[in-house]
């Protein structure tokens, strides 16, 4: 806002380390505003769509939608799709698709249930078994795609069919397996004690603050261009408000039954947070994550850079199937059982939709874990809100479709300018 009338030379920044002119807080803010105006908006459009949606449902069901109970529901309801979507981001990043992620979650859930009930394994053994099945499936799919060279659409379509059969064979036609293990059931049905919620929230905020400030000081020390301290602190404050605010809401009493108290952060929230942090770390902080983006951006260039592209592809499928296994465990916990439909229906489409709404590209090279979280939230809010409205099935389908397209349109229109500049 105060960058007027500079001499032309200063517009040519030097690249030499140590000689960077660091921006002031005001400059940083105005740069950001200009970036957004220019169309480079990151997650903003998706978040905008989410806010619009939430306000719309709030307007229609004022007392219910923003109640503590419903907010807790939202997380528990959206967990499965979001976790699958996080895994799918890896596969989408390399320009592939995994149509079988949903039914893979079913197979892994069935494995868990069978290990718990038929084999009487302890919960950790059963969870391990489910995850191992996920890894094996991912390895199989990845090998077929990356080494044999079958298009991933066909490979995973075949897997989608085959795994439905596997679930049927595991569970038996028309049957279902109930589980009673308290640890597994707790995931989607129990909450952290309020003090633990506060403690974890505080740890998260402190960790974020520490990492941000450390990175910032390192960059300054090396003389690299970095955001002003004010911006860093503002971001930390925003994160603290969001995290601790959510903890505060969820630590309220939300039982509608006077004789029984329900409060605390649902256990599934820290679980998802940990998974998201690990995956985010892999994508943004490791060489392997960098290679994933590279494969999606230009597989041939990546190969020429000496990177083992089939290996990268295979591992992405493994990560996707492993996340599906987590989702399967969460789904079993939520239903306290598995049935032959597990992971079927629209789970996969919703998960891909979540990733895409968040901003992940189906053509590879573009996407982040946060996309899956935001997109998953959009899907969960739509589902949750529609459930509060109580339409008949036909109308509900139509309205759901309409709301989805409206949310996406908010996103698309606000990204317009990005496309106008051609490349982004």
């Amino acid at each position, binding site marked *: 806002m105060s960058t007027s009338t500079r001499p032309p030379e200063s517009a040519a920044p030097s690249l030499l380390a140590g000689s960077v002119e660091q921006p002031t807080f005001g400059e940083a803010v105005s740069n950001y505003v200009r970036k957004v105006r220019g169309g480079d908006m990151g997650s903003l459009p998706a978040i905008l769509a989410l806010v619009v949606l939430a306000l719309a449902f709030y307007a229609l*069901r004022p*007392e*219910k939608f923003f*109640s503590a*109970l*419903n907010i807790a*529901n939202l997380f*528990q*309801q959206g967990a*499965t799709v979001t976790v699958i979507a996080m895994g799918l981001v890896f596969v989408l990043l390399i320009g592939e698709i995994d149509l079988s992620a949903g039914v893979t979650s079913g197979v892994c859930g069935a494995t868990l249930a069978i290990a718990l009930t038929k084999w009487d394994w302890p919960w950790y053994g059963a969870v391990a078994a489910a995850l191992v099945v996920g890894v094996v499936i991912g390895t199989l799919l990845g090998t077929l795609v990356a080494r044999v060279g079958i298009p991933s659409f066909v490979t995973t379509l075949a897997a989608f069919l085959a795994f439905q059969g596997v679930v*049927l064979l595991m569970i038996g*036609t*028309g*049957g*279902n*397996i*109930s589980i009673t293990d308290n640890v597994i059931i707790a995931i989607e*049905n129990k909450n952290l004690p309020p003090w633990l919620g506060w403690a974890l929230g505080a740890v998260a905020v402190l960790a974020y603050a520490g990492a941000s400030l450390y990175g910032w000081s390192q960059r300054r020390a090396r003389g690299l261009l970095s955001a002003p301290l004010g911006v860093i602190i503002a971001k930390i404050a925003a994160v603290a408000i969001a995290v601790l605010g959510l903890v505060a809401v969820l630590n309220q009493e939300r*039982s*509608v*039954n*006077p*004789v*029984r108290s*329900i409060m605390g952060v649902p256990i599934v929230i820290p679980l998802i947070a940990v998974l998201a942090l690990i995956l985010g770390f892999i994508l943004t902080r490791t060489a392997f994550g960098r290679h994933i983006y590279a494969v999606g951006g230009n597989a041939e260039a990546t190969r020429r850079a000496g990177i083992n592209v089939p290996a990268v592809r295979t591992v992405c499928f493994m990560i996707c199937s492993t996340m599906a296994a987590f989702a399967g465990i969460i*789904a079993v916990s*939520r*239903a*306290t*059982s*598995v*049935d*032959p*439909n*597990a992971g*079927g*229906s*629209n*789970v996969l489409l919703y998960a891909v939709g979540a990733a895409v709404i968040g901003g992940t590209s189906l053509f590879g090279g573009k996407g982040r874990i946060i996309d899956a979280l935001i997109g998953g939230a959009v899907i969960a809010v739509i*589902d*949750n809100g529609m*459930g*509060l409205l*109580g*339409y*008949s*099935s*036909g109308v*509900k*389908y139509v309205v759901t479709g309409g709301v989805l397209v409206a949310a996406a349109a908010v996103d698309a229109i606000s990204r317009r300018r990005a496309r106008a500049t051609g490349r982004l």
Partner: protein
Amino acid sequence: SSDDSPGSGESSGSTDGGAKPKVGVILPDTKSSARWETADKKYLTEAFEAAGVDSDIQNAQGDATQFQTIADQMITSGVNVLMIVNLDSGSGKAVLAKAKQAGIATIDYDRLTLGGGADFYVSFDNNKVGQLQGEGLQKCLDDAGKTKANIAFLNGSPTDNNATLFTAGAKEALKAKIDSKDYTIVADQTVEKWDNQIAGTVFEQMYTDTSGKIDGVYAANDGLANAAIAILKKNGANGIPVTGQDATDQGLQNILSGDQCMTVYKAVKKEADAASALAVALAKGEDPSSQATGSVTDTETNKEVKAVLLDPQAIYFDSVKDVIADGYTTKENVCTAELAAKCTEAGIS
């Protein structure tokens, strides 16, 4: 199944700010049978309105996740009674447990949630439906003078427990004939999601594989029956006995035209009325135990569940008129111009 008294209406209802008690109903899907959207919903709504009780009736569209989401939302919005048709016992059980935690009375509608411990159960007996189909198939074969017959089984969705029960019931009814080798099962396949298009291909391949040597078709519902009849017609083989279920207009028409031998009519209105009476009483804080004359055993917990059990009814050419008389459908819907003569013959006026 009676750990907390089903009468906490006032307290939880108060969150809604109004005094009217409220009933939540979750129907399973829109595709396994037309009845959920077309019949149950209508009758239940009418009954609740008449009783001055608020109701929220939703359909999980065949998706267990949706099913639970809807249940969450109903509990959030403060219903006093939750009535569910489970998609499978497992997810049904989770929902019932949550409802009970929230102090909400529960009713299993049409399908028993094993291990769920609902307060009441209202249903037709699904195994009985299958038995009626089996008996009907045998009767029609007998009528056609076929003592030895090749039978094709066109079963419902492999993931639907009820489809399993229907098939099992039918096979029980036909057991004697099968054991005596009078009847041979020449084909036995399931139809994914009760999809009529898939049913057509599945049946066509049965027909091709057996070189058309099929004398009777067990089709699990009227939609599957129609798919089989279309293939039979194409091959000029229609007229052999085909069973059905649900007494849809299409099924009744196929019976009248002689392409289908029978269907099973479940007087949905009776079932809906019984269930809504229970729900209304529970919502108003009364104890309706006296209405529940029967009981069934939950095979998982070995506990008795208080139940209202209704009888399904087999419908043949002569009894099509009963369905219309019952108000389940109308003469206009069934008796198209082409079928006018048959309608008269069947005594539909």
